[in-house]
């Protein structure tokens, strides 16, 4: 039984006390209308989530009352700002089950967090022996999966190019899952790092992390998990996941844009070379050279995104109060409902797992007209927008997945804690309308 299934088994989402209509009242934007009085149906949360009032208030209060630079002033505002900034580190650590707050590094987003690890690995070339584990060169291998977001693919392609290492990947099955049949042949003792997505942003697939981590450990490879689409939607415990690094972004979990997190095991961060140099990340600086601060500050060069970090803290408080298990159960119910509902629309091909098992609330599909001709997602999205329904169309920064499934692009509906089954109904009605328009 999967995590979400076991949560559901306890009863309906309502039984957890989760009231979606009440939750929606916390998000001012959900009350607005579009195109002259149409209610907004926001089904694009995998691109970015909406923000609750608590997060907006926290950012405003920070600027109205506490604004100062962090970690450098000795005046009252500086101490308050530093306190708020560092309090989020504690909140995030607790949120993901990290026992050591120094393992939480603030970045700009997931992309920067993943690049941080990739660049640290090539910087290890010119660092002392303590960074040995991060070094790689010709003959070494980097392993990813075919369902990565470009942010967890391109940095590794670039690392391979810089170091001469080889990039390999785990392929996909026809129903959008990782093909683990030849896992031992893909992850060999030449692998130095295995980086994979937890929940695919395009397929919705939730990957079997434990199995891949077990193989990576067997061969001594570092493991990196892209949690951009999982941390906002399900309970996460880094100890349970067993990975070495976890990257995620604030803006998909009700926090502002501009803040993300790299979590890493302290014993690894401690010997990992820095990525960006500058203020705040140093220990002693002379004209000849510098020594670096201990983690996490070694990886937080320059004035950080303070108000966004404060907003992230408020978002973590908000999600924690509602309860991630309850949120996961709600989204699982909406996803299962949507998969059933989409199956009633003729000519709909789901790109990704067809059932709710081990999958999250991002559903990609291709729609066909009465003649069986694919209606391009751009046209689908445009006609849905006319009804006030916001979906994402395109290759979702995962072009290799589109190539794998032989489609130029998909339409994607994605859900969050505030999504209702009524919104799914509106989508389905909208899709019938699109088919009528292009079948006429």
């Amino acid at each position, binding site marked *: 039984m999967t995590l979400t299934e076991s949560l559901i088994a306890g009863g309906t989402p309502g039984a957890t006390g989760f009231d979606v209509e009440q939750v929606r009242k916390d998000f001012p934007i959900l009350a607005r209308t579009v*195109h002259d009085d149409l209610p907004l149906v926001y089904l694009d949360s995998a691109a970015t989530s909406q923000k609750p009032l608590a997060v907006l208030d926290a950012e405003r209060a920070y600027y109205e009352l506490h604004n100062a630079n962090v970690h450098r002033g000795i005046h009252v505002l500086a101490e308050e700002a530093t306190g708020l900034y560092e309090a989020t580190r504690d909140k995030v650590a607790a949120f993901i089950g990290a026992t050591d707050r120094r393992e939480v590094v603030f970045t700009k987003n997931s992309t920067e967090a993943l690049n941080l690890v990739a660049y640290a690995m090539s910087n290890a070339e010119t660092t002392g022996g303590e960074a040995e584990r991060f070094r790689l060169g010709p003959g070494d291998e980097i392993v990813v999966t075919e369902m990565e977001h470009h942010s967890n693919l391109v940095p590794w392609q670039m690392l391979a190019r810089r170091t001469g290492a080889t990039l390999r990947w785990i392929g996909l099955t026809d129903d959008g899952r990782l093909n683990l049949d030849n896992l031992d042949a893909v992850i060999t003792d030449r692998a130095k790092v295995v980086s994979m997505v937890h929940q695919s942003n395009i397929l919705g697939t939730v990957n079997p992390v434990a199995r891949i981590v077990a193989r990576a450990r067997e061969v001594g490879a570092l493991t990196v998990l892209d949690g951009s689409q999982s941390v906002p939607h399900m309970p996460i415990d880094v100890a349970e996941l067993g990975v070495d690094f976890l990257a995620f972004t604030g803006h998909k979990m009700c926090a502002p844009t501009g803040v993300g997190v790299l979590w890493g095991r302290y014993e690894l961060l401690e010997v990992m070379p820095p990525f960006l140099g500058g203020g705040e990340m140093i220990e002693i600086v002379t004209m000849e050279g510098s020594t670096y601060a201990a983690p996490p500050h070694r990886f937080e060069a320059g004035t950080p995104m303070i108000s966004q970090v404060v907003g992230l803290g408020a978002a973590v408080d908000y999600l924690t109060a509602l309860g991630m298990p309850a949120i996961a159960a709600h989204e699982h119910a909406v996803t299962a409902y949507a998969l059933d509902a989409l199956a009633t629309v003729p000519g709909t091909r789901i790109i990704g797992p067809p059932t709710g098992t081990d999958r999250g609330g991002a559903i990609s599909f291709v729609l066909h007209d009465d003649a069986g001709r694919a209606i*391009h*997602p*751009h*046209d689908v999205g*445009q*006609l849905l927008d*006319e009804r006030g329904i916001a979906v994402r*169309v*395109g*290759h979702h920064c995962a*072009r290799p997945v*589109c190539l794998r499934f032989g489609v*130029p*692009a998909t339409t994607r509906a994605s859900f969050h804690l505030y999504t209702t089954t009524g919104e799914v109904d509106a989508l389905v009605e909208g899709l019938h309308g699109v088919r009528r*328009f*292009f079948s006429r």
Partner: protein
Amino acid sequence: MKLDSMYQEIILDHYRNPLHRGLRDPFDAEVHHVNPTCGDEVTLRVKVSDGVVEDVSYESEGCSISQASASVMSDLVIGKKVDEALELEREFLALMQSRGTAEGNEDVLEDAVAFAGVSKYPARVKCALLSWMAWKDATAKAVDPAAAAAPTPGLAAPSLTPAAGAGAGPALDVPEQEKP
């Protein structure tokens, strides 16, 4: 429906029954252009003889707007002098950048005026322009083979698509449209 201003019947006709589609020989230049935000792609060939656009042939994938635009564009420029066709391209580009304020000169642009409504939708302007930009690029290479051999400065890296062929071209480089 407001959208009818974008999805003109004439556009849907070209989308359903595209003209001049399919890659043909002979040709002087072939390019491959993509719209990276939505996955629209076009491979386009141009044959120029004595300063006249003798043939434009293409294979493309994309939305109704981009498909219809390729059909309308090729039908419009085939048989025209290169200079006249380039003037049409400038005229069409201006129409697409008008944000819904221009109607377009039907005597000059013929079926292409049907795209006037698209200019109100900044996210879709690139769809309408994709094949025009590909044609312009291919034509420049056809009339000046030296340009075809040299990398185009200031443009994005070539597409990695295997279908790109000999004339793998730059990504679509259209001035960014502001969001409405």
